[in-house]
């Protein structure tokens, strides 16, 4: 009975943490967006506008709960709940410190990806249940984008799994004690970051919201707290992505003074390091959001299927090839056991060389294609210019 109650308490804490973290995120979002756009941001409500999120929440809760006519009430009310639930479920598997994790599943990474794919179901439900064909069109485009960008996300997620030899989150973080995975696989980190940015629907891939185009897309018909739930869910999703990138590529809770066994000092320091790394990635995500223009849907799909997917497949092949070579040549290190910086260095250099070769190859192929297109265009322009005039 006591263990059951402990389990319930842990579940309550793990489920409330992301929802509570959504509140300062709203403030960070608005302040950073404002400063990048050379204005001040919220500064009326409390010092530096800190109480602004609470004012936002009160406004959203106090709004009238309008349900448009002709909607499917159950699906309409269920969609924001499923959207937030799919994000909160991800936090069950994420380690915060050497000893603080909800449940250390052996398939942790796969669980996170599976639960993230439930969000697309929520968007489909939201788009259809509004009884509005623009919402439906918006939902179609969004689901196409989300389903397409899952492919490079999972393919680049496999690289840390390959390097660590396990899909469990604590194993992946423990394997980075010598060398962070971002030095071994920078291309994978970049592709994961871009795909995660597209998965949550942040700019430059924000056709989901597109406040100036499709008038908020699939959540046209939502107002009040239901819209607030979608809103908060999106922010928490971006934060979750930041935490995931911190764990998968930048070492998670590793840092000076953290040991894998645990203890009070390790846990507190690990939490602080994780918060710092997550904030850095969240800030980069916000930075991209506020500076890059939006891409069109066909540019988005082209970018994904003709650029990201071949590169991630090639990256996977090259990484596994180089790992095998390093095993055969003898300087492979089993990263989950205590691998120090110098022991992991040869393998790191080999993989880094492979990644750089991949980048150079991509630039060469891309440059070759662009040069060929430009030569063709110039030939056509010359043919038009020298055409006999009647």
């Amino acid at each position, binding site marked *: 009975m006591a263990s059951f109650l402990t389990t319930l308490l842990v579940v309550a804490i793990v489920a409330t943490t992301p929802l509570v973290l959504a509140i300062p995120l709203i403030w960070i979002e608005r302040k950073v967006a404002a400063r990048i756009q050379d204005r001040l941001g919220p500064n009326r409500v409390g010092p530096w506008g800190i109480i602004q999120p609470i004012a936002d929440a009160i406004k959203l809760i106090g709004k009238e709960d309008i349900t448009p006519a002709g909607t*499917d009430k159950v699906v309409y009310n269920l969609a924001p709940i499923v959207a937030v639930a799919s994000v909160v479920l991800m936090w069950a598997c994420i380690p915060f410190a050497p000893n603080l994790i909800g449940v250390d599943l052996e398939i942790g990474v*796969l669980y996170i990806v599976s639960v993230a794919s439930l969000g697309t179901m929520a968007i489909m439900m939201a788009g259809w249940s509004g009884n509005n064909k623009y919402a439906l069109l918006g939902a179609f485009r969004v689901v196409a984008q989300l389903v397409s960008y899952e492919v490079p996300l999972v393919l680049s997620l496999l690289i840390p799994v390959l390097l660590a030899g396990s899909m469990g989150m604590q194993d992946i973080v423990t394997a980075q004690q010598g060398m962070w995975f971002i030095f071994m696989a920078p291309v994978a980190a970049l592709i994961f970051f871009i795909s995660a940015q597209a998965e949550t629907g942040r700019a430059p891939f924000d056709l989901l919201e597109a406040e100036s185009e499709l008038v908020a897309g699939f959540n046209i018909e939502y107002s009040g707290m239901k819209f607030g739930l979608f809103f908060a869910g999106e922010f928490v999703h971006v934060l979750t992505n930041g935490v995931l990138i911190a764990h998968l590529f930048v070492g998670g809770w590793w840092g000076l003074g953290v040991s894998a066994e645990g203890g009070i000092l390790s846990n507190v320091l690990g939490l602080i390091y994780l918060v710092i790394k997550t904030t850095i990635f969240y800030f980069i995500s916000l930075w991209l959001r506020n500076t890059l223009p939006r891409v069109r849907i066909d540019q988005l799909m082209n970018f994904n299927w003709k650029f990201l997917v071949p590169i991630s497949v090639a990256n996977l092949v090259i990484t596994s090839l180089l790992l095998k070579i390093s095993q055969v040549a003898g300087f492979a290190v089993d990263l989950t056991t205590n691998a120090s910086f110098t022991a992991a260095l040869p393998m790191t250099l080999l993989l880094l060389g492979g990644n750089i070769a991949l980048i150079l190859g991509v630039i060469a192929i891309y440059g070759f294609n662009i040069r060929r297109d430009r030569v063709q265009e110039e030939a056509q322009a010359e043919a038009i210019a020298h055409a006999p005039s009647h």
Partner: protein
Amino acid sequence: MVVQYLAFVIFSAFAIIGAAMVVWSRNLVHSALFLVMSLFGVAGLFILLSAPFLAAIQVLVYIGAIAILIIFAVMLTRSMTAIREPFNAQSWLGAVIGAVLFVALVAGMILPVWGWGSLPTLPQSDVVGTTRDIGIALVSADGYVLPFEVASLLLTAAMVGAIVIARED
């Protein structure tokens, strides 16, 4: 353990009631959503059967892709007329066949052989299907590498076929 039994009852209820509502519901989008509920129940059953990898793949592939594909197809092929009769004229025969099949399976095969028969009905060992074992089985030479390659060919053929059939030519 009581908790396992309770979990089994809940997941089986999800699976069976979801399946029943798929067939019974007049609204096709509701049917698709009940299918999602049934798939969740099956994923839960996989977890109870010590196959966590398959449970995660069930959610990722079935719910995250196939169910969304079905909902897409439902929304793209909605007829503009009113909702007609969901069941066809031989639905009573279909119900009889389904019921006879169920009774034949349960009373004729499942209960005699594994219910009170001689074959063991309790788990033989504490196998936990780790992902590593599945991976080794899928690519080892005396494992299932040939069906694995054929399955990837099947997926490629299905992808090309679906694109060709659904194009606007």
